[in-house]
Each structure stands twice: as C-alpha cells, then as structure tokens.
C-alpha cells in the first residue's frame, strides 16, 4: 500500500505548478470601445481590467491630437468594482483621442497601455 502510494507520488510527472498565470492587470475592454468611433462626446471613459487594482497607484489620462489633456483629472475606481477605473471628460469636439492608462494590480505589478477612440467622425 505504502509502495503504491509512493510510486504515485514519486513519478507524478509534470503537473506541479505554482501560481501560474493571472498576475498583471491588462485592459479587458473599455467604453468607448478600443478603436471605435462614437457619434457624440462621451461623459466618461470606463476601463475594465483583468485583475483587481490598487487605486492609490493607478491612473488614466485622456489627450487630444495636440497632446493636451481633455479629462477632468478625477480618475477613480468604481464603488464595489475593484477591477474598474473611470475618468470624467470635458465636452469633446470631433477628433481622435488617446487614452493612456497606468495601473498597478493588487499583486503589485504595474502595467500600462494606450488606445484611441474617435468622436463624431464617420
């Protein structure tokens, strides 16, 4: 009995893994959607991430073609939804806008990225 047990354990081949995936928060989806075009100026940009975030070290900015900031500087995590960030926007004229995010996940890893969306064109 003992030998059988040890046989199982001693040869138990590859599948011993420590916590493997799921570190680092990446952008899951956003509204306005990545690369999309919206007819009217949105009031907020909302971003959903793959991991819970540390709001104290996470930030989002939105800039226009000329590189000027067009957000209200009030990036905050949604209440009760630790994987979501939201930021308010000033009224936007038609054009292309860039969202830059820099977040730290709860397991301490920083990640960043950008995407664009368009207002009022097409």
């Amino acid at each position, binding site marked *: 009995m003992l*030998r059988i*047990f*040890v*046989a*199982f*354990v*001693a*040869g*138990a*081949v*590859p*599948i*011993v*893994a*420590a*916590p*493997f*995936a*799921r*570190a*680092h*928060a*990446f*952008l899951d*989806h956003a*509204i*306005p*959607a*990545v*690369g*999309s*075009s*919206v*007819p009217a100026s*949105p009031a907020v940009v909302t971003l959903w991430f793959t*991991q*819970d975030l*540390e*709001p*104290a*070290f996470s930030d989002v900015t939105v800039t226009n073609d000329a590189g000027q900031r067009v957000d209200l500087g009030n990036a905050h995590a949604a209440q009760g939804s*630790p*994987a979501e960030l939201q930021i308010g926007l000033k009224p936007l004229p038609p054009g292309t806008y860039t969202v830059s995010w820099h977040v*730290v*996940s*709860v*397991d*301490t*890893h*920083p990640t960043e*990225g950008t995407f664009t969306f*368009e207002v009022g064109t*097409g």
Partner: protein
Amino acid sequence: MEGVLIAARTLHFAAAIALTGVFAFDCLVASPALRLSGVAAASEAGLRRRLGWLAWASLALAIGSGTAWLVAVAANMSGKPVGISLCRDVLPVVLTRTRFGEDWLLRLTLAGLLGCCLLARQGRRRAVGAIGWVALLLAALMLVSLTWAGHGGATPGPPGDLHLLADILHLLGAGFWLGTLLPLALLLTEARQTGDTNWAAVVGTATRRYSILAMASVTVLLAGGLVNTWFLTGTVPALVGTEYGRLLLAKIGLFIAMLIVAAVNLLRLTPRLASADGGTRNVVRRTVFQLRRNSLIEASLGFCVLAIVGALGTLPPGLHTEPGWPLPFRVDLEVLTLQSVVFLAILGVFASGCAIAAVTAAAAGHYRRMTAFGSGLIVCVVLGWVPLRAAIEPAYPTSFYAPGEPYAAPSVVRGAALYAKNCALCHGTTGRGEGPVAAGLPVRPADLTAPHLFAHTEGDLFWWVSEGTDNGVMPGFADVMSVNARWDVINFIRARAAAVLARGIGPEVTTAAALEVPDFAFERAGKQQTLEDALKRGPVLLVLFAAPTPVARLAQLAAEQRRLSTAGLDVLAVEIGPSARQPTESGAPLSFVVDVSADVTSTLALYGPPEDRGETDLMLDRAGNVRARWTRGGRDGLPDADTLVAVADGVARFAIAPQSHTGHAH
C-alpha cells in the same frame, strides 16, 4: 532593482517555509519521538538548541528580507528610485492603502508574536506544550498570508477564490515538506554525534513519523499545484515558448528530482533504520549518514525551486506573452476522430503508470522490475505513434501568437485597405486566388475563402504574411507592413472568409466549424455597447438590411420583442448598404435599430450582400459564431417569432469555448 526584488522574495519565502517547518517538525516528529524514548535530558538539550538557532535565524531572515521586499515593491509600484523620498512619501501609502502593505503589516505582527513565543520557550528544557503548537499556528498563518497579495488574491470572482485556495494548499504543503528537511538533518546530525545508544530508537521513530508527514504534505502540495494548472488547459505553447513557461518547467524538473531523492529515502533507507537494532550499529550509522546527506541535497534543490519562484513572480505570466514555438511541427488533436483521441488518452495513462513504476522500482533497487516497466513504456509510445502521426501539422515560431489587433470592425476595415494594396494582385479582389498576376506564378495563390483557412492558426497566417511561403513565390511583407498592419490584414481575411462560408449556412442550426462575426461597437438608447457585451447575455439575432428600410418586417420584430427578450434573445438591426447612416423614415424610432459608424457598416456588409434582396438575418451563439442564416429570398424566407425562439434556445446551449487568446489584444 529586479535582482533585489527576486532575492528578497526568494529569501522571504525560504524563511517563512523554514519557520513553519521547524515548528511542524518539533510538534509532529521530534518531541513525540524523544518522549517515547529514554534519552538523557542533556543530549535532548543539544537538539533543542540547534532547532532554536534555526528558528531565530529564520525569523531574523524573514524580517530582514521582508523589509527589503517592501522597499523594492514600493519602488516598483511608484516608479520612484529607492531613497529618502521613497521612504517618506511612498511607504506610508503602500503600508496603509494597498493590499500588499496591509498584508505586510499582518506578517510583521505575526513575526513579533513568534518572537515572543520563542522567548517563552527559551527557558524550558523538555516537552513542547501549548506554546509549540501556538508557534506552529502563527508560523503557518504567516506563510499562508503570502497568498493574499498574490496572483490568486488578485483575480476577481469565484475562479480567484479557487485559485487562492490552491495557493494556500500549495504553500502549506511546501512548509511541511521542504521546511522540515533542515530540522530532520539537524536531528540526524545530533544522533550521529552523540554516544547515547537510545538515539537509535529516536531516529527510528522520528524517520517513520517524518515519512508520514512528508507524504501527506507532498499530496497537499500536488493537489494545490494540480488545481492551479487545471485553469490553464491548452497552454503547452505558453509552457514551452515563453520565458515564464521555461522557468516553470525548470521548477517542475527540480521538483521531480526532489521526489526521486525522497523516494530513495523512503523506500531504501528508512526501512533499514526501522528494522536494524543495536547489533548492526555500523549499518545504522551509515544509513543515518546517507539519510542526512540526502535530506540536505533535497533542501538545496528546494532552495533552487524557491529561487525560481522568486523570479517567476516578477515576470509577466506565460499566458500574456507571445510564445515562440521552438519546433517545426505541432500536434492538432482536432483533426483526429474521437476514438483515436480516447485511445491516445488511455495509452497516455498506461505510459505514465509505467514511467512512475519504473522510477519507483529503480529507487527501491529492483532493477529487473524497472526494465520490465521501462519496456512497457516503450511499447505504449510506439503504439501511440501510429494515430498521432495524422495529427502532426507543420508549425512556425509564430504559430501560437495571439493576434496583436482585436478581431473587431476597425481592424477589419484597415485590413481591407491593406489587402487591396498588397495582396489583391495575386490573391484577387475576391480572395479566390485569381488576381491579375496569378496566372504567371509557378504556384497558384491560395484561395483565401476556402474552409481550409480555418485549419491554420492566426499565428501560421502571420508567419506566411511576414516571411512569405513556397520558397519566395509569395514574398514576405515584414518590410512593407508593420506588425499591427499584418494582424489587420489577417483579421480582414478571416472576416471575409467567415462571411463567404456563412452563405452556406441555412435556417437549420449548424454544429460545424465556427465562423465568427467581428466585434463592433454600436449605440442604442444613448448608450454605447459592443457586440461582445450583448453576447454575454445570450444569443443575438443580427438583422442586416439595405435601403429601402423594410418597415413592415421591423415593425413585426418590434411587436414580438418582449417575447424574444424573455426567451433570452437580443435583436440588433443594422443598416448596411450605400445609403446607410441616414435617419430611418418610419415614425417611432425602433429600439433595436442601432447606430453604428461607417467602419462597422462596411464590415457587416461582408455578411449581408445586396443580392440577398434587402435583408439577411444571422443567429449568433454566445461566442459570436453564425449558427443559422435566413435571407428574404431564401428557401424558408425570414423567420417568425416562433422559429426565432426555438432556434435561440438550441443555440444558447452551445458551450462557449474556454477563453482563448483570439482577438484578445492588450
């Protein structure tokens, strides 16, 4: 800073595991063994002193490495360099407002309490008493608290909870197995150096108890590890092709080496101690020496494992980096029949069993049995090769790359323009391979609308677009198109092929190969959503119509809308065709006619060409695949509400494939 972070993590894990191990060994192995024998108090004191030193050293290391880890994490999170300003401004924020910081303060408190326990025990000479068990509990808590600011703790929802539980089991198993190796070596050292013959009995009892402890903790360790891996089916490319995956393979290799040493200890050495009496003292001495040496070897291997764990925690995980496939072929099980796959699975189980039995027999010294099982293993491999050969496909370094652009309308439209400029010359404007230049080529350009396109991964296509194929008959476009541009072209080709093949789908729900509609954004009732959002709630009926607006049909759908949404079916009507984006002429706005941009209109136009006489209805399952299709001029005409409810019900049952990385760009 990376190096400091990895070193701090490694040392801290080692210290926490050692702390748990020394108290576990004391409570579960050493004290019971000493109590049952009659050793003199003086020599017992020797062992107590050694264990005490180990505990204090581990505690000091835990606090020191923990502080270094905190500073390194604060620098990492804030992006600031290590210095006075970091300590003054960032550390308080980290300690009070992040989960890592709160966790750290908890562990510091536990370390302080452990120090008190150690001081309280300083004076006592015998027995463990309650303090020993309290110390074990505190040390185990300190070890387990490492998971709360780790990967399992950061994942939202029930999968995160399961992951967290698996992490906890994994760490506890490590604490009780890896952590108790050094204390065991210390006990064996004491036994060798003392002249007291009673120690033979102590060693016999201790090693027997230790075997049980080790077996139980390895099982728990394995259980935690297995659950974590179960989350990751289909990641052989990530395991073999990413830095993270290769480090993990190294860790698994070291673990197997540790298990083999443990097997030798358990099967050959420990039985000798149990059976030998004082008469064969030389055998006992030699066995104790070998056992001690093996335990130290295992502990060293274990420390290397912890170093890998330290590094792994700083890398992006394998699933989120592009895996470079190292072999010129891959195994595609989807081309095999169900019987072949079952046969291969059974052979796999047999082969694993033979491998395990062969290794165990070798560890126990039964070499004839080892040869027998080894031959069994070879037979399994040879038998399995026969069906496996049919599943081997050529593969390229990029075969398992995730698309760099999401499979969505903006990318498809960009891809269409790039295709017209770069690809239409040979592959033709329709993609069938009859471009103006095609006739003069030695190899006919591939038909990009054939079903065979979907037998290749996106990564295969990316390789051909980047490097060319057929010895240069198709040139590589790596110089002409950026990486993202190439992914756009691939998204367009796949979207068009899906549209062309979807024309073969009729009103009956099809279970054949999945043809996916690209994601797109739309505005409904003032809110922007995407098709993916809508599909999360259930199947979607996509109604594509061209001008003139089929007012009667839309009114009919509107009348039935409540019934359809109760059945779980969402309806999205999009106007495609040259006059799109003009306001509808009907009176009341219909809530399921949604506003989209020109990108989306031209993408969806692929799926509903004008010869369908003005309207195409597509039933999409929850993964966005086309499962049924009706057209105005088609065999059954357009579906009524009863048909739609029945079809939606059937389609909703299609299982969603596990989240793969197609179209999931970051």
